[in-house]
């Protein structure tokens, strides 16, 4: 069962001025982080349960927590997957989605089935340098998602056959 109470308590503990300003001893900072991570995991179950009911899909849902360093095992290894964008704001938002992938050409379709402009860009060297303990995506799939107010949109992503690598430059 998911719940938001665990995160509520963790955030409550983290209202202490040491947590807000980052002036705690290291082992206390580690404890704040652990509490927040456990609370977040409980919330993920809650969100999954809600989205499962609303979307009618009971396929297990993954949350990519290391997108900032282009790590997401599911999108890196899947040829076909779907992305749900939940918008907590009370107005529609456009949001650039960046997903780590290893293919070079994908089709992205929005809920109605129409194609979305997307492109694949290489993962920067700086990112590769800092993710030494996991993640092997060479590229990122980028597209602009739109989500309704306090609602969600689901985009479908499929790998199109990888394009051949570019021909080497001709001498001279």
């Amino acid at each position: 069962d998911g719940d938001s109470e665990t995160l509520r308590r963790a955030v409550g503990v983290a209202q202490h001025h040491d947590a807000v300003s980052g002036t705690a001893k290291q082992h206390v900072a580690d404890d704040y982080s652990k509490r927040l991570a456990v609370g977040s995991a409980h919330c993920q179950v809650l969100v999954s349960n809600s989205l499962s009911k609303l979307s009618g899909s009971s396929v297990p849902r993954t949350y990519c927590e290391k997108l900032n360093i282009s790590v997401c095992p599911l999108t890196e290894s899947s040829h076909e997957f779907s992305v749900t964008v939940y918008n907590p704001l009370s107005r529609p938002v456009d949001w650039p989605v960046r997903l780590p992938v290893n293919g070079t050409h994908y089709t992205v379709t929005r809920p109605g089935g129409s194609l979305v402009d997307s492109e694949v860009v290489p993962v920067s060297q700086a990112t590769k340098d800092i993710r030494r303990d996991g993640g092997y995506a060479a590229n990122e799939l980028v597209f602009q998602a739109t989500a309704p107010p306090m609602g969600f949109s689901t985009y479908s992503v499929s790998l199109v056959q990888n394009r051949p690598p570019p021909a080497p430059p001709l001498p001279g």
Partner: protein
Amino acid sequence: APPVLENQYLRVTFDPDTGLLSSLTNLETKQTVQLKQNFYWYNASVGNRESIQPSGAYIFRPNSSTPVPVSLTAKTQALKNSVVQEVYQQFGPWVSQVVRLYEHSQELELEWTVGPVPVRDGFGKEVITRLDTNINSSGLFYTDSNGREVLERRRDFRPTWVLKQTEPIAGNYYPINSRIYIKDQEQQLTVVTDRSQGGSSIQDGSLEIMLHRRLLVDDFRGVGEALSEPGEYGEGLVVRGRLLLALTPPSTAAETHRRLAESLVLQPLLSVQSGPLR
């Protein structure tokens, strides 16, 4: 050719000699600011004749008012596509940045990566990024308080007492919860942050934001540890974050930065499911 990022709303240029940002243009309002952005570090004080107070977890106290540039130049690589245009900037082995402009975006994204901060030279470092513009800000800048009220900050001044400024840098630093800006009659440059940070405007037209700190001594305020989290590899933490820049007339700036800050604080939650969509 020097890289240029451009969409229907913004145009961003880079200095061909240094690889640093050189200007930002709002194509809708036809406003351009000269904009130089670079990364610097303040040398953390370990105490001096005026005070034994070192810089530490509680106390920000650089030992000089002049920050040291991480590098005077950046190696750049540009990538221009239709959905996103990016310029990668490498300022050295421990600072890099991606300047990013999406197709329909009215703001410029700076994704900075700082760390592990080297300290083998024996200097604690407080790393900042500084944006220098030609905006005539007259000693004023603005930071928000928990996203609610944006407060005017005046350099070397407190509204309720006569200030004798003894710390020209730290004494002018203020908390940023989501945004900081400078403005003049014509234009306003707003920086929206993705986390609470510290920031200031030490010179007119300039904005600076603290990004990362790694210190070697405790500040005697109770924590009992130097601010130097070793990280998983024992060499210090790498931190990555984003700044969003908006250039607007002052009269329309609030609408822009409120929308931007909301979309960062309450950003969409992504989840992924394997297999075809059913």
